[in-house]
C-alpha cells in the first residue's frame, strides 16, 4: 500500500464560489477517502424565527439562498398556508410556478457556466451567463428584483403579471429556447467535454438512492424523484416531465440539468396558457398552530421546510433541509476512488450551494 497523505481542498479554491472544506486522503494521485467540513458561513437563520413574526420571516427564508431565493420564500409560505388551511387563489399558485421555473432556469444556467469554467471552457461559461441575463431581466421586470424577488407572501403573491406581459414572456421563451439549444448542444455533443466528464465521479443508482441524493444528482443516476410530482402549487395541473440519465457520472448530471432547461420553459408555457383571472392573494389573520413538512423541488433538488407554530406570531421552529446538505454524503461516495485532478469537477457536478446549506 502506498503512503497516505491528506490534501486539504477548500475552503478557498478557484472552483468554489462558497467555502466548504474537504480533507482528501490520497494514495499517490488517487483519493481513497474524504472528510467534509462546513460551518464557515453559518448564519443561524433558523434561530431568527424566534424574533421575527411569521409574515416577516418570508424575507429571511428568501435570503437563505441568493440563487433559488424565490423557491425558499414560496416553500415557507406554502408550509404556513398548509398549517393555517389558507386557500391560496389559483392565479397566485400559477404565478408561483412561473417564478419558480424562471429561478430554475437562472440556477441551471449559472451552474452550466460555472461548470464550463471548472473544466476550462471560458467561452461556454460566458455564453451560459449571457442567456442567464435574459432570465434575470424577466425576473427584474416582473418582481423588481434580480435574485431576491420579495414577491411571495403568506396567502398569495405581492405582484401580478399582466396577461400581455405573460404572452410576451412566453413568446420570448422561443428565442431563449433556441439560444439554450445552441448552448446545450455544445455541452452534450462536444468531444472534449464528453471526454472530461464521462466516467468521472460515478455513483450507482442504488448508492445515490440510499445515500440520500436528491435533484439532478439523483436523477443523473437514474433515480426518478422530483418533488414537483407531489403536485404542490399549480404543478398538479401541469404536465411535469422528470428528466433522468442512467450513467451516474458528471456528464449525466450535466445532461440532466441541460435538458431540464427545456422542461422549465415548457412548464412556463403551460402555466401561461392555463393561468386564470382572479385575485392574487387572500387576507391572512391569526397565527399558525401546528406543524408541517413542506417539500418542494428547488433547482438543486428536494427542499424541506419544517415549520412548527404554537398559535403565536412567532414560530417555534423553522428547520430548512437544503438539497446540498443531503447531497454531501453522495459526494463523498463519488470522490472515493477518483483522481485528484477530477475533484474540482466532481464537487461542482452536484451544484453545491453552501449558503443554503449553512443557512
Amino acid at each position, binding site marked *: 500500500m502506498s503512503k497516505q497523505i491528506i490534501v486539504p481542498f477548500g475552503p478557498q479554491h478557484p472552483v468554489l464560489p462558497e467555502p466548504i472544506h474537504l480533507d482528501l486522503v490520497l494514495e499517490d494521485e488517487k483519493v481513497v477517502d474524504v472528510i467534509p467540513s462546513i*460551518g464557515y458561513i*453559518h448564519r443561524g437563520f433558523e434561530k431568527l424565527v*424566534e424574533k421575527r413574526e411569521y409574515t416577516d420571516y418570508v424575507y429571511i427564508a428568501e435570503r437563505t439562498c441568493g440563487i433559488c431565493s424565490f423557491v425558499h420564500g414560496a416553500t415557507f409560505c406554502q408550509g404556513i398556508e398548509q398549517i393555517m388551511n389558507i386557500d391560496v387563489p389559483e392565479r397566485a399558485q400559477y404565478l408561483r410556478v412561473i417564478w419558480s421555473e424562471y429561478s430554475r432556469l437562472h440556477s441551471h444556467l449559472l451552474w452550466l457556466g460555472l461548470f464550463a469554467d471548472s473544466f476550462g471552457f471560458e467561452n461556454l461559461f460566458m455564453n451560459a451567463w449571457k442567456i442567464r441575463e435574459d432570465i434575470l431581466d424577466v425576473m427584474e421586470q416582473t418582481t423588481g428584483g434580480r435574485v431576491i424577488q420579495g414577491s411571495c407572501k403568506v396567502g398569495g403573491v405581492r405582484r401580478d403579471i399582466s396577461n400581455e406581459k405573460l404572452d410576451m414572456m412566453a413568446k420570448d421563451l422561443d428565442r431563449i429556447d433556441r439560444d439554450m439549444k445552441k448552448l446545450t448542444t455544445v455541452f452534450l455533443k462536444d468531444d472534449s467535454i464528453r471526454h472530461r466528464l464521462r466516467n468521472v465521479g460515478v455513483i450507482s443508482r442504488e448508492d445515490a438512492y440510499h*445515500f*440520500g441524493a436528491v435533484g439532478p444528482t439523483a436523477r443523473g443516476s437514474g433515480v426518478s424523484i422530483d418533488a414537483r*410530482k407531489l403536485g404542490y402549487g399549480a404543478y398538479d395541473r401541469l404536465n411535469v416531465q422528470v428528466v433522468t440519465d442512467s450513467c451516474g457520472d458528471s456528464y449525466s448530471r450535466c445532461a440532466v440539468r441541460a435538458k431540464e432547461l427545456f422542461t422549465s420553459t415548457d412548464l412556463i408555457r403551460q402555466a401561461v396558457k392555463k393561468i386564470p383571472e382572479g385575485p392574487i392573494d387572500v387576507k391572512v389573520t391569526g397565527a399558525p398552530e401546528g406543524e*408541517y*413538512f413542506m417539500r418542494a423541488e428547488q433547482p438543486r433538488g428536494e427542499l424541506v421546510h419544517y415549520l412548527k407554530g404554537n398559535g403565536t406570531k412567532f414560530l417555534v421552529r423553522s428547520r430548512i*433541509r437544503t438539497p446540498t446538505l443531503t447531497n454531501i454524503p453522495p459526494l463523498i461516495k463519488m470522490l472515493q476512488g477518483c483522481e485528484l485532478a477530477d475533484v474540482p469537477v466532481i464537487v461542482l457536478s452536484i451544484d453545491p450551494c453552501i449558503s443554503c446549506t449553512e443557512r
Partner: protein
Amino acid sequence: MENQTTTNIDVGKLIGCVERFRNKGCRLVQIGCTKVGEQYEINYSFDKDYHFENIRLTVTADTEIPSISGMYWSAFIYENEMHDLFGIQVRGMNIDFKGTLIRTAIKYPFSQPPVTVTKGDKP
C-alpha cells in the same frame, strides 16, 4: 396536499423502527431537532414513492440516542448537525466530527432559551 404521518416512539425502539423503513426501501429525507420547553423532539423523515412518513422521539438534554448511520450511512450529516446545534448526544456515528461540523460562536446555540421579543425591541 401531501398526507403526512408522524408516529411517536421511544428511544429504545428507534433502531428497530428505522430498520423497518430501510427494509421497505425508504429513503431518509431528513433528521431534524426541535426544542419544545425543556425537551427535544427529534424527527426522522422517510419517503418512498412520494409517501412521506415521520417518526418522532421526545427526549431530554441528557438522553443519549443511538446513531442510525449503520443503516442510513448519510445520517451522519444530520446527527452531527443535531449535536452541534442542540447538544444532542448521539452514540456510534460512522463519522463523528466531535462538535466541529458547524462552527458556532456559542456552544449548542439552539439549546438556549428562545429570545423574548417585546414591542419596541430592535430586531
